[in-house]
Structure formats: structure tokens, C-alpha cells
């Protein structure tokens, strides 16, 4: 445990020095999610002021509730996007040569990728979490059954996002074209999970694809908890999220082992 903690601290410190220590990171932390949120809101808004909206999507009949829906989507997406982005940054370590060095150390590879995602997530999302929470609260639409439900919401974001990050990290660090894979995952991640549209608006095949992405479950728990659902009502979704997270971590371990073996054979742990 001490060993793992040291890796977590080292990864977080490395990322702070390399990425998050810069002032320009503020753009990525606040400005981009806010601009994306505004774009989503004004894209959907012209469709909600239409006759019959209360029957089609009752929530959208009130602008405050629509804003809260999109803001929760933007906040949850920020958690998952940060781990996806950190995986992309991590893949550059293969080109700079430090990944090879990392793999020569006795650090556990799985802990390394978990630490990379978690370190980036905390440093990347804390500011937007504060701003989005203030915005969602200001809409006056939050009704939690117990203050502890906020902790449930946070855990339903942090644990699946970390597990998702571990799997993506383990794929991207061995990929030849990590930028391409980053882009291929980025769009479906928001599109199929209900970040900007309610799930009922998606075709059934896309909804089915979305269920394997943990962001879908995180959003269901988050929106449900903030709308007054009890822990009992959210239990099936929480169990599914737990199962998905465990499966993602197990898959990450398998991919890491296979990737390292292949890299040892081909000498491709360093791209230069």
C-alpha cells in the first residue's frame, strides 16, 4: 500500500510539474468546459421552446432544469475527459524515452496507470467541479435526500473514471498513433453516454453501446442523486458501475502485460 501511495504521489507531482503547473492549464480546466457547456445549451435551447415539449421531455420545459442537466453532463464528462487526456499525454513518454525508464523501475505497472489517471483527474477537475457545482446549485434544481449523497455522486465519478483511465492508458501507451485513438474515443465518449442529450433521444443500438461506457452509469447516478433518488433506488446502477470498473481494471492489467511482453520482444517501448 505504501508502495502504491508513493507511485500515486510521484505521478501527481510529475504531472503538476509538466502539465498543471502552467498558467495556460486554466484554459483547459475552466474555459473549455464552460464554452462547451454554453454551446450545448444554445444548441438544444431552440428545440425546447416548442409546443409539446412537456410531454416529450418534461425537464427541458424549464430552462434552469435543462441547464442543470447539461451542467451535470459537462461536469461528469470533465472527469472522464481528463483521464483520456492524461493517457494521451502519457503516450508521449514513449517518444521522449521516459516510459522505458518507468518500466525499468520496480513500480507496479497497473498502479502506475491508475496513478496517472487519478493524478490528472484531481488536478484537472477541481476548479471546474467548484464552478459547475455552484452553477448547478444556483439553478435551484438540486434536491438530495441526504448530504451523504454528494459523496456517493463523487465516488460514482472518481472510481469509474479512474478505472476507465487505467484501461485507456494501457492501450494508448502501446499504440503507434495515440492521437488518432484519443480522437476516436473522445467523440463517442460524450455522444453515446447522455452528456448532452437524454438517453431516450439516442437510437437503441447506440444506447446499448453506451452502457459499456462507465460515464453512462456515472451520469445516471449523478443526475438521479441530485434529483432526490435514494441510495436504494440507485443500487442497481451503482452495482453495475462497480462491476464495470472492476472489469476495466482487470482488462487494463491484461493489456499492460500483453503490451509489455510485445514491447520487450520488438524493442518498441521507446519510439524515436
Amino acid at each position, binding site marked *: 500500500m505504501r508502495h502504491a501511495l508513493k507511485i500515486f504521489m510521484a505521478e501527481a507531482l510529475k504531472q503538476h510539474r509538466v502539465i498543471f503547473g502552467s498558467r495556460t492549464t486554466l484554459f483547459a480546466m475552466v474555459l473549455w468546459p464552460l464554452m462547451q457547456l454554453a454551446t450545448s445549451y444554445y*444548441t438544444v435551447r431552440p428545440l425546447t421552446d416548442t409546443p409539446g415539449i412537456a410531454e416529450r421531455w418534461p425537464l427541458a420545459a424549464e430552462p434552469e432544469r435543462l441547464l442543470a442537466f447539461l451542467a451535470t453532463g459537462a461536469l461528469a464528462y470533465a472527469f472522464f475527459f481528463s483521464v483520456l487526456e492524461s493517457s494521451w499525454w502519457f503516450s508521449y513518454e514513449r517518444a521522449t524515452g521516459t516510459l522505458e525508464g518507468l518500466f525499468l523501475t520496480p513500480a507496479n505497472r497497473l498502479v502506475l496507470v491508475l496513478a496517472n489517471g487519478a493524478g490528472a483527474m484531481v488536478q484537472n477537475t477541481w476548479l471546474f467541479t467548484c464552478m459547475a457545482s455552484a452553477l448547478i446549485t444556483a439553478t435551484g434544481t438540486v434536491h438530495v435526500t441526504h448530504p451523504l449523497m454528494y459523496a456517493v455522486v463523487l465516488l460514482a465519478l472518481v472510481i469509474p473514471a479512474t478505472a476507465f483511465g487505467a484501461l485507456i492508458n494501457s492501450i494508448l501507451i502501446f499504440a503507434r498513433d495515440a492521437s488518432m485513438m484519443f480522437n476516436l474515443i473522445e*467523440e463517442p465518449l460524450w455522444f453515446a453516454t447522455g452528456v448532452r442529450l437524454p438517453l431516450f*433521444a439516442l437510437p437503441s443500438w447506440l444506447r446499448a453501446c453506451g452502457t459499456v461506457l462507465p460515464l453512462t452509469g456515472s451520469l445516471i447516478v449523478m443526475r438521479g442523486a441530485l434529483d432526490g433518488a435514494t441510495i436504494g433506488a440507485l443500487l442497481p446502477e451503482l452495482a453495475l458501475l462497480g462491476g464495470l470498473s472492476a472489469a476495466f481494471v482487470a482488462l487494463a492489467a491484461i493489456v499492460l502485460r500483453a503490451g509489455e511482453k510485445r514491447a520487450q520482444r520488438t524493442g518498441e517501448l521507446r519510439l524515436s
Partner: protein
Amino acid sequence: MTFTAAFRRTWLSTRRAYPLTLSAPILIMGAAGLALSYLAYRAIGGGQVSAEFVRRAGTGDYLSFVAVGTAAYVFTVRLLLWIGRAPVQEQREGALGARLIAPGGRLAHLAGLTAFAALLSLIEVTGLVVAALALGASLAPADPLLAAAGMVLVALFVFGMGVLMCCMTLVTGDLYAIQNTTIYALGALSGFIFPVGLLPGPVRALAEWLPLTAAMDVLRAGMHGTSLPYGRALSSLAVSLAIALAGLALLPRAQRRAMERSY
């Protein structure tokens, strides 16, 4: 000759190194945006748009409005990414110094890069147009000449902005923050997916001041037959030209600064 060399080198290096990275990400981004609007229009709007949208956009044809905007957005992102990142990419690869010593002109080199990006974008936009037509959008221009003029205005602004981004990325050494902030801001403020008239007061004023918004208005006037903002079209032309000239004037200094910093 410089133009052809820049075009050919970009084509060869991109095709050999990362062939899939060429078009797939931007095409997926555009297709996702188009699909989001289509699904929202069907499931949330029930095939209708608000009266305010019709008043602000000048058309009730939501799908065509979004399709034109998405195509223009994809074109904008492609060109900005390509032109804006090229010099800093060259610097990272160690080729900037050699290229500056070579006698080729800057404008011809940038034009070669732009031509390659525009060609690539043409393929992406064609893909999007086919998808939009399949979804039921009507993309026959009401006034083809005016639509072409709108496209030229959009391209002029994007070229100028791309050159200015070159300077900023070379001077600061930062690519990621500059390019993404520019793209997100233009995406939110230029009326690609929704009319800027829907934005709140001060933000709307800022959006209307942007030359790209005016260029989009001209493009929409040509595509949907909405009223043509003559004054704003002229100001878009003038400001876009000024941005391009300022970028070209600043580029030698930015390149010098980048070279000095690397030693």
C-alpha cells in the same frame, strides 16, 4: 515552386506517418455534431424549432441550418489546426531552421499548407454533406454566387487567423491551449450551430463583432436566402484582411524569436 514543395511535403509526410489521422478525427467530430442536432431535433423538438430560432436565423429549416454550420465548422477547424500548428511542429521536429535558411517565401509556403488542408477539408465536407442530405437537409443554395462569396470570406478569415495562430504558437511555444481555446471560442461565438442572436447581451455583441460571424451570415444568405448584411460583410472582409496581413507581418519576428529560444 515553394507552394508545390510545401503541398507535396505535407502530403507525403502525413500519408507515410499517420494516414488515418488525416481525416477521421475531424470527420467524426463533424458527424457527431450533425447527429446530435438531428437526434435532438427529432426526439426533443419533435421536428419543430422555436419561433425565436426562426426569427433570429431567418429560416425554420433547422437541419439545413445545422448542416451548413457544421460543414463550415469542420472546414474552420481543419484549416486552423493545419496552418496554426505547422511552424511549431516543424520547430519540434528540428526542421524550422533549415526551412528558414532555404530561399522559399513564407507566403508561398503557407499557401501550400493551406491548399493541402483545404483539399483535405473538401473531402471531409463532402462526407458531411452526403450525411446531411441523407438525414433530410436541403443544401441547394438560394444564391450560389452569394454562397461562394460567403465561403471565400470564411476561408479568408480562417487563413488570417491561422497565420496569427502560427505567430502565437511560435512565440509562446504553446500549441494545445492556443489552438483549442481559439477553436472552442469560435465554435461558441460564430453562429455555426445556433444563431448568435440567442446569446445573452454582451456575449452577443462580442459574437457579432467577430468577422467569422459576419462571414457565416453571408454564407447563410447565399444558402438559405436570408437577408444579406452588406455592411457586416464588408467589415468582415476588411478585418479578415487586416488579421492576415498582421499575421504575415509578425511571422518573421515570431520565427526569429522561436529560433533564438531554441539555442
